[in-house]
């Protein structure tokens, strides 16, 4: 069943539109931040494009349709992330999606952005064997999700203070790199042997599956305060950052495998912005091979927020007839 669907994501800073044929043929996958020149998108200044969804979404849709070589009338369904995020942002994407569904008489599918992240893996690897343990390391959340089937999933571990990616970005900033510094940290970690210093691995020894990274952030703060970098006898930045990132990856990998074991799962997936880290990926590859666990990893472009993963989950929802009405509500980042 080769349906054509359009998906929109405006839950966070970026504006994203994708067009999908069937379950995983991506005909277009556009996020505003991937364009250096925003003239085509209403002239928004790139570094000020955060949450400018209303200004850019229509030109972005037009461009996506052109890339896919289709018109609105070819679409079979429309999907939109309706949670979690900033309500004011979500409502823009949701209203556009509802308008399309209404005008074109198409089914509307509301998607949980978090549930969609692992579908970056379904997009590129095809059907994955359930049950699965997903690590989602996205901007504001670090989550372990146990999924028994499509639409049947449960969060079994979560960050209780700073998310992993947030910790990495903040530590990079402490070392003088512009925010967000995730990519810089990955580069340094790849290029250097970790310094002998062993930074804390918060909650690694506890029995639970939750994550805590603020202690590691604080340890780095103290370290930065108490040590000279680069001087003779002092520490070199590269090895220190490598040792720091080793602590982050250690926690993420160990907890994910522990969760998989606990739930009797033989395959894990990784997704979310931090999954773009090559160092983390290498770590996961080695650990999963050791543990005899199957590992699924998306390409970097599908790790960060994008509407293609939203579209992929929506295609499954569409096939299952799980549609929403035009009264679909947006849900803010309501925790607890």
């Amino acid at each position: 069943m080769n349906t054509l669907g359009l998906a929109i994501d405006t839950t966070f800073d970026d504006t994203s539109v994708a067009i999908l044929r069937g379950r995983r043929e991506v005909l277009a996958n556009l996020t505003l931040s991937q364009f250096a020149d925003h003239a085509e998108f209403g002239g928004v200044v790139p570094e000020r494009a955060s949450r400018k969804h209303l200004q850019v979404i229509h030109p972005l849709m037009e461009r996506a349709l052109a890339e896919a070589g289709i018109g609105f009338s070819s679409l079979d369904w429309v999907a939109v992330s309706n949670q979690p995020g900033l309500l004011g942002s979500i409502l823009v994407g949701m209203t556009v999606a509802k308008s399309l569904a209404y005008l074109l008489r198409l089914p509307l599918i509301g998607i949980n952005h978090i549930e969609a992240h692992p579908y970056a893996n379904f997009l590129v690897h095809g059907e994955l064997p359930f049950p699965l343990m997903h690590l989602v390391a996205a901007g504001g959340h670090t989550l372990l999700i146990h999924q028994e089937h499509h639409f049947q999933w449960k969060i079994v571990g979560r960050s209780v203070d700073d998310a992993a990616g947030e910790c990495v970005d903040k530590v990079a900033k402490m070392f003088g790199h512009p925010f967000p510094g995730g990519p810089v940290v990955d580069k340094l970690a790849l290029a250097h042997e970790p310094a002998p210093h062993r930074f804390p691995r918060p909650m690694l020894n506890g029995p639970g599956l939750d994550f805590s990274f603020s202690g590691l952030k604080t340890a780095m703060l103290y370290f930065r305060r108490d040590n000279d970098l680069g001087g003779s006898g002092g520490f070199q930045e590269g090895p220190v950052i490598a040792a720091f990132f080793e602590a982050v990856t250690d926690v993420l990998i160990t907890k994910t495998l522990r969760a998989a074991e606990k739930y009797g799962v033989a395959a894990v997936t990784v997704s979310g912005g931090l999954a773009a880290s090559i160092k983390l990926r290498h770590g996961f590859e080695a650990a999963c091979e050791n543990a005899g666990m199957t590992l699924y990893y998306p390409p970097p472009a599908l790790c960060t927020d994008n509407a293609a993963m939203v579209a992929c989950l929506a295609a499954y929802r569409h096939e299952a007839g799980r549609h929403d009405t035009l009264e679909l509500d947006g849900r803010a980042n309501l925790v607890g």
Partner: protein
Amino acid sequence: MQIELTSLDATRRLGVALGCALPERAIVLCPGEMGSGKTTLIKSICEGLGVRRETVISPTYMLVNIYRGLRPVYHVDLFRLSRVEELLEMDRCDWINSEGPTLIEWPEIAMPLLAGETALTAHMSLVTGADNHRMLALAGDAEAFQAVFTTLDGATPAPARKPVGTPGGLRDKLQRH
């Protein structure tokens, strides 16, 4: 009012007491450098407001977390905003709670929009030479935050106790110590 918090536990006790004593729709500004303990303190303030402690996470990426407590609690973090316009393009009710308290980390950029609000400032800072100590400077309108100041004035470090669900209950306990 300056209070030295000599352990995580001390921060927790003070935070819970502060949360219990907050006026209904208080705005609490939490400036302080990275890692100074703003989120850690707010976790306990939220606990005092009837929010489950584990649900309180850093809103640096999401900008606004909304928790279910006795009333909804807004936990805001403006670290990632670089221009006041980014806030001006949000409705005020999207980041200032009209039904309950609002706790704001990295509030500096919002100051021009908060002129005229009676806010409590809870400034956290590191203490040199004592890694598990933090200095908390509390400032705010004496009348509007009278309950906060009187509660905390009398609150000498008490032994660790289980978190208490209702503010009334905790205040009673604090007074008994």
